[in-house]
């Protein structure tokens, strides 16, 4: 007799071969310039429940370019495992043909050329069209938002998230969980959440004073869909007060809280849940570990680390879905739930090719309405670029190099530090850089650019500390950001070493001299998590720098030597 795991493996094989997804099958279509909306949306409705997952939109209402990472290193048990597979290896793993639309959507190679052929991605009006088409096939499909929605743009900053709330409400989500939302400040978060027409979930959002579940956020919500009792449990980003400024939301504590998750799963099962869905902002490797420790979760909708995977990953009897970022993808998961158990699935990661998918006109109008008061200011052209500007990857992207250059020249510093966040769309060579583009790469509520002095020893210590948040072999000790981007210095890193031994050969790029542990250096940076940081806003620093450059040119960065990958 087939076990449940066998059923799930059959589903997995079917997904991969037939491409319920259609991934891998488009190369020929594209060659004929025939990629259509129908092909992108094609899906043989399956089972009795449909889930729609969007996550990490980072306030990108409009179509953008977004280059996937070239370097994404897995450590410990995750070495070489997805999502730590990029480029040609990724295409080989999933049978994606070079230069195909899938190659453009999922890998970094030839990004500029492919971007010119296939165009921009995302746009919440296109996302709406996809959601509507899924709802046409399955009217009671659940739409679940993994968070990092109310952060990341000029309009989002100036409306304190209201633009995103208004547009997302039009898409009618059923539940949401959180991360960057909290950097709006806890008062603003409570104000929005109080009026949300859907569930605000976080089983791990605790009252910091009493160390018990916070009353403002429910741990889970029950839905009845297709005759199935579904429990959707929320898991907010566990390390919010560490990775982001805790002083902005001092009432709350987070954490991974594996035992709590098991209790909540047991509780919903006790109440008759036939399908348990975890809407998570843990990050992919943390979700894998949690799925291996907590028994009874059927589906994890994973967010935070911005990975886009064309197939689910199976951990025990749990499937994990990763749906990308910045509005670039929507995942559809159809499930067959019988006799109180999930017995099979069909999944498709739908890339939102903006030129192929027809926008939902009502949502387009709503987006324009949010942007109208700011359109003149944010569309101002500040300069242009003859290099591709991108950020995603474990180490410096060209956007980061540009920001570090701006920090060093505008703030007269020898060394710059820029946070390894994973958001921020790409800009094509030859394109103008508008104020909006700069804000897309820098917008945050704690963006002041400080200037200070640090010893070489302390700079090294910071680099080791951040590297351990990324390369600790136990995913539970990872925070889900990339390595801090350093300007003005180069270094070598062995990702397999323990904290304190990973970073060596730190040199000042200008002089070639070794970083002197005893010497004091001037350092400029931004996104400090401490209250009272002083300095101009980072977007003003970057704008001034780009204006002076006129046309930005970024040389390939060879200052970081990586070993152990």
């Amino acid at each position, binding site marked *: 007799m087939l076990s449940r795991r066998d059923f799930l493996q059959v589903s997995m094989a079917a997904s991969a071969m037939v491409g319920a997804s259609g991934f891998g099958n488009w190369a020929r279509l594209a060659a004929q310039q025939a990629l259509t909306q129908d092909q992108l949306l094609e899906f043989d409705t399956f089972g009795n429940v449909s889930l729609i997952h969007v996550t990490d939109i980072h306030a990108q209402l409009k179509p953008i370019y977004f280059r996937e990472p070239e370097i994404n290193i897995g450590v410990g048990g995750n070495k070489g495992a997805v999502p730590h597979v990029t480029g040609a290896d990724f295409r080989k793993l999933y049978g994606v043909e070079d230069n195909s639309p899938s190659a453009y959507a999922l890998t970094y190679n030839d990004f500029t050329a492919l971007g010119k052929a296939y165009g921009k991605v995302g746009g919440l009006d296109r996302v709406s069209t996809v959601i509507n088409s899924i709802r046409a096939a399955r009217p009671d499909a659940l739409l679940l938002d993994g968070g990092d929605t109310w952060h990341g743009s000029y309009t989002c900053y100036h409306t304190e998230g209201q633009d995103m709330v208004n547009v997302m409400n039009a898409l009618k989500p059923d539940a949401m969980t959180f991360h960057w939302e909290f950097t709006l400040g806890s008062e603003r978060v409570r104000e929005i959440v109080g009026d949300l027409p859907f569930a605000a979930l976080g089983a791990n959002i605790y009252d910091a004073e009493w160390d018990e579940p916070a009353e403002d956020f429910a741990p889970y919500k029950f839905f009845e869909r297709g005759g199935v009792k579904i429990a959707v449990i929320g898991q907010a980003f566990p390390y919010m007060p560490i990775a982001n400024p805790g002083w902005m939301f001092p009432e709350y504590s987070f954490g991974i809280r594996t035992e709590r998750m098991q209790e909540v799963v047991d509780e919903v099962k006790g109440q008759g849940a036939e399908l348990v869905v975890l809407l998570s902002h843990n990050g992919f490797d943390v979700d894998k570990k949690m799925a291996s420790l907590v028994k009874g979760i059927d589906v994890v909708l994973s967010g935070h680390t911005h990975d886009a995977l064309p197939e689910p990953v199976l951990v025990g009897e749990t499937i994990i879905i990763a749906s990308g970022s910045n509005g670039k993808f929507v995942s559809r998961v159809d499930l067959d739930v019988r006799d109180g158990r999930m017995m099979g699935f069909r999944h498709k990661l739908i890339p939102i090719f903006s030129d192929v998918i027809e926008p939902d006109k009502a949502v387009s109008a709503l987006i324009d309405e949010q942007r109208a008061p700011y359109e003149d200011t944010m569309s101002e052209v500040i300069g242009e670029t003859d290099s591709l500007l991108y950020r995603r990857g474990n180490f410096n992207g060209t956007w980061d190099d540009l920001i570090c250059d701006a920090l060093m020249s505008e703030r007269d510093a020898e060394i710059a530090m820029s946070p390894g966040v994973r958001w921020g769309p790409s800009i094509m060579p030859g394109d103008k850089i508008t104020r909006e583009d700069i804000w897309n790469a820098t917008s945050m509520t704690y963006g002041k650019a400080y200037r200070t002095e*640090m010893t070489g020893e302390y700079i090294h210590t910071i680099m080791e500390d*951040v590297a351990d948040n990324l390369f600790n072999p136990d995913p539970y000790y990872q925070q889900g950001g990339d390595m801090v981007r350093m300007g003005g210095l180069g270094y070598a890193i062995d990702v397999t070493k323990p904290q304190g031994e990973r970073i060596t050969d730190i040199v000042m790029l200008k002089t070639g001299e070794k970083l002197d542990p005893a010497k004091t250096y001037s350092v400029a940076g931004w996104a400090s998590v401490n209250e009272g940081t002083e300095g101009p806003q980072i977007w003003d620093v970057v704008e001034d720098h780009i204006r002076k450059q006129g046309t930005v040119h970024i040389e390939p960065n060879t200052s970081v030597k990586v070993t152990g990958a």
Partner: protein
Amino acid sequence: MNLTRRDAMALGLGATAVALLPLRASAAADDAIAAFTGGAEAGEGGITLTAPEIAENGNTVPISVDAPGAVAIAVYATGNPTPGIAVFNFGPLAGSQMASTRVRLAGTQDVVAIAKMADGSFVKTSSTVKVTIGGCGG
């Protein structure tokens, strides 16, 4: 480390008072544990220590211990200058053998919990709690 308070403020590196490399268990910790167990070997299982993987604030880290059937549970911060945190004693009328408190950790280190059972045997568990500078979360 040559770092002023102003530097720390400007940077948002709130961890100046904290050792930033993992702290090894000190001889003082071994001694304290030996004093509690009388040198007896501690087994595994039957004791749960709940602690965050990464502390939100190293100055006040919530932990809890649970060891059904224990007569006492001792907790140690093995990297702290004074490793002993607490010894919880449970009388025969105790409804459960669990306790929670908050501890201050000098840096990344292992927190160890040891329970003395009614038959005089010991069980032990430990958990690594990381204290980090923070920032840079994706």
